[in-house]
């Protein structure tokens, strides 16, 4: 359907609020970051000088930046794989139950409504080495838990906290995917002599692959860019650099280290990554995989 307006002005007027929001909150900051990436500013913001690509050169010669990249990849893939596996398991179980189905599904969806920082605080309390119930329980079981000292434990903690929030989202998609698999296919496979386990891996899982691939990308993007709140509330990137992801490093270098130019340069690189991932998403995921 096409709507035509008699005047040229009205469409622009109607678009104006959205355009304003985009300009003020997205385009302007992006432009500022881009500009700042080429300057070096003093800590008080009183003066700055143009340094060309020096901020980028510094970044690429800094071993800490590469370490952060590795941390980000480990973190993101851990979150994505853990989130997908647990959600798939829960969805398969939810698909089988008959009684109390709605209540069970609703409860599983709740964590998605919890703000990232709150999710972080929640897990921070549960795992607090001196008073967190899980940490104390682990201690009683012979595992000494202190994510303030142990970088691997800190990583496990942020992965758990970030995954927990994402499971609900994955669960919803997997459940919908499972319910779209025709019952008669499962029945045909049962008559064809496939065990329940085999039915899942040879029939159901392949039919879920478009959903799985979509969720993998969504989860990677989430772990890359939307877990700042969780990390800030649990480990603040520490101990050392062990949980400093690229996004956390932007904040840490810029607002704690007050290296605004370097921070801006990192932002520009992240913008590039987002752009790349968007292309991937549109190229491979928006193209519908169809079975009939």
């Amino acid at each position, binding site marked *: 359907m096409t709507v035509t307006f008699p005047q040229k002005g009205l469409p622009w007027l109607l678009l104006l609020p959205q355009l304003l929001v985009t300009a003020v909150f997205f385009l302007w900051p992006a432009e500022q970051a881009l500009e700042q990436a080429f300057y070096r500013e003093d800590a008080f913001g009183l003066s700055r000088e143009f340094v060309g690509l020096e901020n980028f050169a510094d970044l690429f010669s800094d071993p800490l930046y590469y370490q952060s990249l590795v941390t980000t990849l480990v973190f993101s893939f851990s979150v994505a794989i853990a989130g997908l596996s647990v959600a798939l398991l829960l969805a398969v179980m939810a698909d089988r139950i008959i009684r109390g189905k709605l209540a069970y599904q609703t409860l599983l969806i709740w964590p998605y409504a919890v703000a990232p920082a709150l999710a972080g605080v929640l897990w921070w309390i549960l795992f607090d080495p001196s008073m967190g119930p899980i940490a104390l329980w682990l201690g009683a079981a012979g595992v000494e838990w202190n994510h303030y000292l142990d970088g691997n434990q800190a990583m496990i903690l942020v992965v758990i906290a970030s995954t927990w929030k994402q499971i609900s989202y994955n669960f919803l998609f997997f459940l919908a995917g499972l319910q779209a698999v025709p019952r*008669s*296919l499962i*029945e045909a*496979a049962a*008559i*064809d002599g496939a065990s329940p386990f085999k039915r899942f891996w040879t029939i159901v899982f*392949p039919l879920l692959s478009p959903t799985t691939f979509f969720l993998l990308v969504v989860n990677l993007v989430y772990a890359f860019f939307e877990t700042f709140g969780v990390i800030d509330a649990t480990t603040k990137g520490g101990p050392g650099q062990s949980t400093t992801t690229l996004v956390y490093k932007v904040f840490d270098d810029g607002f704690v280290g007050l290296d605004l130019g370097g921070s801006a340069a990192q932002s520009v690189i992240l913008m590039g990554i987002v752009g790349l991932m968007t292309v991937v998403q549109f190229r491979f995921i928006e193209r519908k995989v*169809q*079975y009939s």
Partner: protein
Amino acid sequence: MTDVILEKVGKTYPNGFHAIPSVDLSIEEGEFIVLVGPSGCGKSTLLRMVAGLESISTGELRIRGERMNDKEPADRDIAMVFQNYALYPHMTVYNNMAYGLKNRGMAKELIAEKVTDVATMLGLTELLQRKPRQLSGGQRQRVAMGRAMVRDPKVFLFDEPLSNLDAKLRVQMRVEIRQLQRKLGTTTLYVTHDQVEAMTLADRLVVLNKGKAEQIGTPMDLYNKPATPFVAAFIGSPSMNLLGANLTEQGIKVSDALTLPLSHRHRGSIVWGIRPEHLAVSDEQNADFALRIQAVESLGAETLIHGKIDTASGDGEPMVVRLSGPHLPDINSVMWLTAPAQHWHLFDAMTQQRL
């Protein structure tokens, strides 16, 4: 040799719904049995119970003498063709057919041989590397049958396999299924709601109504001697004319305008029936009754005339007459008809049983 026996088989759902009270049926080896009935009569449920996809609440199912009630579908040595074909969409035609054999641990070479044989028989050789979505409806149907045949099971189960095809293809596949079944000699249980399909395919028919087997017999048995008004109405197209009547000293009193002479021991209310093709055109002297014509359907080879038994008040019972060849009587004109006694069907109105 008796191949499949259903003994007082019943189905009650957990919510207390009695889908099937009790069905007895014994199927000979190589026999083609069609379960037919209107939707909701329990025919698919019964088939799924034989397949093992629904549990059997009461009674016993035996295949070749072995009790099957608690066996998994895979262990019953049956193969099923589903209404929507249920082909695995991510597998090629070859893999769809080989899947059941692979699961049973058959050697690769033997699988290839069997699949190729069946594909040749069904004319699927060219399509073996295609995915189901690249096939037409008829081809998918054939692959579904191939998947069932390749396992060489004791029993074939068909759940309305032709209802997703267009009319022309349906007739073609119907003939093909019958030929294949004869050739393979595999015992077959086939579910349909289409009485033409049922009549043409079956060695014996089971007419189901509300989970009860109304009558079991050959198509001609059911056509000539329907046991109940339900079977009488269900078998044959157009349906038999069935009218409420009274059996008295004078004979069958259908209405004020129609009394048919008959001496019969039975007295009281009955259902009187005659098939549209058994009513004959007559003249005013010899006719049993007059029909006021309301609609004419000309099909070329035959003509269906819908009307009412002519009365002064105009509220006579509706009747359908089937005449061979083209006829073009005027709407609202009167047609004189006889209802030959040898074609009457009488049922007790109370017990619904044939008299």
